[in-house]
């Protein structure tokens, strides 16, 4: 009996009227945990009952403590008929199980009903007494801390970063059980909510066990998702990064830990301590990999593209041996691991050594379970899964799903290897399900890591610079990790513009956040690629084949769009890249978001050139030149807008890193050509190469147009999808997190790809425009962590959900520290230049043209060897040739005109946070005369891992909530918009209430992982499922810090409404 859970029901308020006759309610409360239920007395005739109950005590196993939610039901007593339920509150008591987190949950919780929404509030106090020794702890995974934050949480220090942990559990979806036909929608919804809550708890416990096995004590970057697979069940899966964390200092001493604000910032996730180095390069050759595997009766693993960066590999002379050593160490550290993956997107200083590029893998699966002959075959490596209940045949499922993911992860791992990397960082997984087809996707950034953090017991607190001093400069992460002479794809390398010693690619794509010490020129911006493809409606295998045939084209086009847009912005690197492919009945949607920046270490990007197909036609020529002018103007304008003024470096100093300018050659290929030629497909765009768009058909015209239709945000606005906006660092403290949802209905008549693309593009652009308009009062401000999610709920419906946070910043505040910092680095750069003068950089020019690398071939081969289904294989290979053909007609490499590099002001991302005097702390404190007695504490929510102008002093635990809302009176609730608006507001309210009850005043790393909306206007019905998560924290304003630190920061929990009775 390792734990005693104690619950006290204090009072209720604002209850709904349940008795029409008296306009009052006779309320009582049922408190349930596991199979034990307690009841309060009935409080007669009141909408604000005061139960003031005794302590209800549950004696339970710690396993149950982790799995089960506390369920509180408020009912209206009825003498003659059944008691009516008013609503429920589920409380996850997990935060009470870690020693450092919350000690009590106490506050007002909204009483939630899946049909009526929030109906009043209830004041509850919850405590847990764990009377067991530490060993006992270790048996269950109580005590393992979970963080959604994808960096080392602020008040902790990473001793060891162990690596990837994953788990999934499967169950039947209550909505699809036979009993659902006879029970009420409410009962069905509640069964689902309870089940998911239970499964989440179980999942978390299991992951915790794995972490303990690895000797870690925390999971960082914990991401839990659920897949609603309909008939075939419900999957809850989670990934994370196991770590051993050390609390930096006692909460009272958080100041000493970071004496100066700027240093402090270094530790904050805001400035993710990245590697050293800021020369980044990147090249975006496309590495095509194809493989098709059979796991179940049917599945196709789709050819994947790797967007890679090139690194400087072994080129550096003095760096060579050291690097090799490093590599060895890392390798050994990582080799024990099945998957050397890290869900982190920001790292302790020195962790990230090199970045290779983005690796991704997708696989199309059929969920059809019943006709599944192959399904027994793959169960060799059995693991034990505890099933929640129900059918035994379900028990096969976790293995199936596990095998699917294992396969994808394996692919990712091999892609990373191909890039000369041992590890994948910024790793994430997702699914898209439509009927019985499911696309599994995984992506991350291939990287070389510093082994220090990966080995047990070796690291002794030397998080700081020591080792870094030996390593190259702060541009290290941009240097290519792979061997230059054996590059996995063709790419253009140059010497790093920062250190001049190592090679860098010309473009760098990553899924991680911009390392803090990277030198960036100008500001960053949100770059999106959007794409739709129609597909025929089909069933089962035919459908899956059709989808997998489309995927490579989509990947390719998404990539091309990203590249074009990046060049149009005059930038050379993408961070936080997230590509989402969504499958619908009759179409596929692709949406890629990333933050473009100009990395000082990478070469200046070339321009975009337009080539006409029929050069003889005069008016056509004119048209082309007109377009060209427009594009050039746009690039120039963007450079100005984003303040991209790279320092002038004369050509001679740099040397000529690019091989003999190639002749402007067009790669033409016909369908029939073999895959060998595909290898010539060179999508890399070297420094000297302009990106050529050939306008040979209306399609291409459209593409050029769409490039130009992207409107930059109005002045005063910036946007990015990473944690921080490169180039802006003087944040003030006003933040506004929001969720915006749009659904459009397509007119079903003759939809074409173009029309679809335009609709989708307009949808996204209009949505962004609306956001800018709505938030105009915050100017100057930046939308950070802009997260778009696309879903296709029905045939003609497209749903886009955006969650982001707007943060104000001070335009005028000059940042001395930053400036001097940059100046220094510039100086260093220039001295480096001089040293380098002697070297003609031939290496690069030699190596470049000599790379007729056959990535596609390789993979095709592997695909054929792997594939058990001839049909699938055939399909893929056919696609490939046409794919290649298409590429060739679009893109070619030509010589770049002399680039213009101007000297100008430079900003970096080294951030100095300034507490603004006008925070909303003041706002809150200013008592508006009549409203001064407000009891509701402000709870901030943000998708970022930090709060500008404030310091996080305590992590209270993870918030992971799942809600269903349903209505049968859609019109009366204001239609779909009214319904969803109210629901999302309610979800926010419930998250805030839970945080406040834990004693917190903010949620960081907040994410809305799912927002599934279904409507049936004819029946006046709608249903919505929302899953959100984040970390509950206590923060203290920097402006208040001094006061607090002198007073001992006890008064953290300024929020919830319960007064004295907490102290029992």
């Amino acid at each position: 009996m390792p734990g005693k859970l104690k619950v006290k029901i204090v009072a209720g308020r604002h209850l709904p009227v349940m008795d029409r006759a008296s306009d009052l309610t006779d309320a009582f409360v049922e408190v349930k945990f596991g199979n034990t239920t307690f009841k309060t007395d009935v409080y007669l005739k009141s909408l604000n009952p005061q139960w003031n109950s005794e302590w209800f005590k549950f004696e339970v196993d710690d396993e149950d403590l982790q799995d089960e939610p506390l369920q509180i039901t408020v009912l209206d007593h009825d003498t003659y008929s059944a008691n009516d339920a008013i609503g429920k509150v589920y409380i996850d008591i997990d935060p009470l199980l870690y020693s450092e987190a919350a000690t009590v949950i106490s506050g007002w919780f909204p009483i939630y009903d899946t049909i009526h929404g929030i109906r009043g509030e209830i004041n509850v106090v919850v405590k847990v007494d764990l009377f067991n020794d530490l060993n006992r702890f270790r048996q269950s995974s109580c005590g393992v801390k979970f963080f959604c934050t994808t960096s080392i949480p602020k008040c902790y220090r990473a001793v060891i970063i162990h690596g990837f942990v994953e788990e999934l559990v499967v169950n039947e979806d209550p909505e699809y059980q036979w009993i659902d036909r006879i029970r009420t929608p409410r009962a069905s919804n509640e069964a689902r909510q309870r089940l998911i809550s239970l499964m989440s708890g179980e999942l978390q416990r299991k992951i915790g066990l794995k972490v303990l096995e690895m000797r870690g004590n925390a999971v960082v970057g914990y991401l839990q998702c659920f897949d609603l697979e309909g008939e075939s069940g419900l999957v809850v899966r989670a990934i994370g990064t196991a770590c051993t964390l050390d609390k930096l200092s006692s909460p009272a001493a958080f100041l000493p830990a970071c004496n100066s604000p700027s240093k402090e910032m270094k530790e904050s996730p805001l400035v993710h301590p990245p590697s050293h180095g800021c020369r980044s390069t990147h090249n975006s050759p496309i590495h095509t990999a194809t493989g098709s595997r059979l796991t179940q009766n049917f599945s196709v693993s789709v050819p994947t593209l790797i967007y890679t960066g090139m690194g400087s590999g072994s080129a550096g002379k003095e760096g060579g041996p050291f690097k090799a050593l490093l590599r060895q160490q890392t390798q050994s550290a990582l080799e024990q691991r099945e998957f050397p993956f890290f869900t982190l997107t920001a790292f302790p200083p020195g962790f990230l050594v090199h970045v290779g590029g983005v690796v991704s893998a997708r696989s199309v699966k059929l969920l059809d379970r019943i006709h599944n002959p192959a399904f027994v075959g793959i169960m060799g490596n059995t693991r034990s899964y505890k099933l929640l209940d129900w059918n035994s045949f379900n028990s096969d499922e976790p293995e199936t799903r596990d095998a699917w993911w294992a396969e994808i992860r394996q692919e990712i791992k091999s892609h990373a290897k191909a890039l000369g990397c041992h590890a994948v960082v910024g790793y994430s997984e997702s699914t898209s399900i439509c009927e019985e087809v499911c696309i599994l996707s995984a992506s991350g950034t291939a990287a070389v890591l510093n082994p220090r953090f990966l080995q047990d017991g070796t690291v002794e607190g030397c998080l700081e610079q020591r080792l870094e001093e030996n390593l190259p400069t702060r541009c290290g992460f941009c240097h290519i990790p792979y061997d230059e002479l054996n590059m996995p794809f063709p790419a253009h390398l140059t010497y790093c513009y920062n250190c001049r010693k190592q090679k860098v690619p010309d473009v760098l794509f990553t899924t991680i956040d911009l390392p803090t010490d990277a030198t960036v020129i100008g500001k960053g911006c949100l770059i999106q690629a959007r794409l739709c493809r129609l597909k025929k409606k089909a069933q089962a295998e035919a459908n899956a084949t059709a989808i997998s045939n489309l995927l490579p084209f989509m990947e390719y086009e998404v990539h091309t769009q990203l590249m074009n847009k990046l060049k149009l912005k005059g930038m050379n690197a993408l961070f936080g890249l997230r590509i989402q492919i969504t499958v619908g009945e009759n179409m596929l949607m692709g949406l890629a978001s990333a933050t473009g920046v100009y990395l000082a270490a990478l070469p200046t990007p070339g321009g975009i050139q337009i080539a006409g197909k029929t050069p003889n036609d005069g008016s056509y020529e004119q048209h082309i030149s007109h377009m060209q002018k427009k594009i050039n103007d746009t690039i120039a304008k963007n450079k100005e807008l984003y303040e991209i003024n790279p320092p002038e470096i004369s050509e001679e100093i740099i040397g000529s890193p690019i091989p003999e300018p190639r002749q402007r050659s067009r790669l033409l290929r016909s369908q029939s050509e073999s895959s060998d030629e595909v290898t010539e497909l060179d999508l890399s765009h070297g420094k000297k190469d302009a990106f050529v768009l050939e306008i040979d058909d209306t399609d291409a015209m459209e593409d050029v147009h769409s490039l130009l239709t992207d409107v930059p945000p109005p002045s005063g606005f910036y946007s990015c999808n990473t944690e921080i906006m490169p180039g802006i660092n003087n944040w003030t403290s006003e933040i506004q997190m929001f969720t915006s949802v749009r659904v459009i209905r397509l007119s079903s008549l003759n939809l074409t790809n173009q029309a679809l693309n335009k609709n989708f593009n307009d949808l996204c652009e209009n949505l962004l425009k609306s956001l800018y308009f709505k938030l105009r009062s915050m100017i100057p401000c930046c939308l950070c962590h802009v997260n778009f999610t696309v879903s296709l709920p029905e045939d003609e419906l497209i749903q886009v959900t955006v969650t982001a946070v707007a943060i104000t910043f001070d335009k005028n505040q000059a940042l001395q520290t930053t400036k001097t910092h940059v100046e220094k680095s510039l100086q260093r750069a220039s001295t480096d230049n001089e040293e380098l003068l002697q070297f003609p950089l031939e290496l690069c020019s030699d190596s470049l043209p000599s790379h007729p690398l056959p990535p596609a071939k390789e993979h095709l081969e592997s695909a054929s060897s792997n594939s058990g289904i001839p049909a699938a294989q055939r399909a893929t290979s056919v696609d490939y040739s046409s794919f290649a053909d298409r590429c060739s007609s679009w893109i070619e490499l030509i010589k770049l005109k002399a680039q213009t590099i101007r000297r100008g002001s430079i900003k970096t991302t080294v951030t100095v946070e300034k507490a603004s005097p006008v925070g909303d702390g003041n706002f809150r404190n200013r008592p508006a005369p009549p409203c001064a007695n407000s009891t509701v504490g402000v709870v901030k929510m943000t998708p970022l891992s930090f709060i500008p102008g404030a310091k996080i002093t305590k992590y209270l635990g993870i918030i992971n909530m799942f809600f269903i809302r349903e209505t049968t009176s859609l019109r009366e609730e204001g239609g779909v918009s009214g319904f969803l608006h109210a629901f999302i507001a309610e979800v926010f309210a419930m998250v805030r209430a839970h945080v406040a009850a834990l004693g917190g005043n903010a949620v960081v790393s907040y994410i809305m992982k799912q927002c599934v909306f279904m409507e049936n206007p004819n029946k006046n019905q709608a249903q919505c499922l929302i899953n959100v998560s984040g970390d509950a924290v206590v923060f203290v304003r920097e402006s208040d810090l001094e006061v607090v630190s002198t007073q001992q920061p006890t008064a953290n929990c300024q929020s919830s409404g319960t007064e004295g009775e907490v102290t029992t």
Partner: protein
Amino acid sequence: MTSELDIFVGNTTLIDEDVYRLWLDGYSVTDAVALRVRSGILEQTGATAAVLQSDTMDHYRTFHMLERLLHAPPKLLHQLIFQIPPSRQALLIERYYAFDEAFVREVLGKKLSKGTKKDLDDISTKTGITLKSCRRQFDNFKRVFKVVEEMRGSLVDNIQQHFLLSDRLARDYAAIVFFANNRFETGKKKLQYLSFGDFAFCAELMIQNWTLGAVDSQMDDMDMDLDKEFLQDLKELKVLVADKDLLDLHKSLVCTALRGKLGVFSEMEANFKNLSRGLVNVAAKLTHNKDVRDLFVDLVEKFVEPCRSDHWPLSDVRFFLSQYAASVHSLDGFRHQTLWDRYMGTLRGCLLRLYHD
């Protein structure tokens, strides 16, 4: 491509003051968008009409959801669904309960019943205020009335406590409730020149002096009803005009005191008896509900109009009323000094306020 669903939900609820005003003024979304376009917002922000439409819809939806809470403002403070900074909450409440001068003049002193609600159509046509806005304002009056009707203690305090209004607005509501409760006639043509402020001023004086609460705040009564006993007692004042000697003495005292100080002395002297009769008779009649309702009509008819027709300047009216009230203390035969002060003190204030063009 049609937008099926379009929402924006912020962790802090966004309140656009301009849109809030349009919503309160009862404009439909379409009208509100048109008005916003006319305000030049598109040019300022570079937004499109579609963006404006979506934004307006969104705000309207939010306001619609907030309206339920605004009906009981303390709920707005304690609710958890919308996170709104206190200053914004105050603004929402204050604006929601604000009313149009033109509207309040139409319903002031009327019974706040369903019957009146039907007249809202006419009021809307007459004042040019949208019907929706009229409804809101009327419902606000009624709601406040209902809540404080049976309450003890200070009317203004009660309103402030239950509706969290600013002091100024709470006072106005006190006046509205007071007028509605006593059904003072304010709509007559000869009263049209009076503003709501004039009435509110009088109401406040009357609440302070003529209600039960005015005598004893501990009393089990409210500020809303006039002190019946006091009204009964007012009959006693009749002696001031009924007793010829007393009236003459009063006149001579006033005339002596004011001689040479009043620009309109002769007119005053000539009219004294009429004016005094008017003022005292008003007091004596207040026992009847019907006459209570006509209080303002009577005051204007019996005092304001005669003086105005003789072109009394306001300063003279002030001198006269002071002297008129004070001289009574020197009338030896008159025993109801306290009663007279309670009556005249308030009446003097009211009359001075009512005396303008």
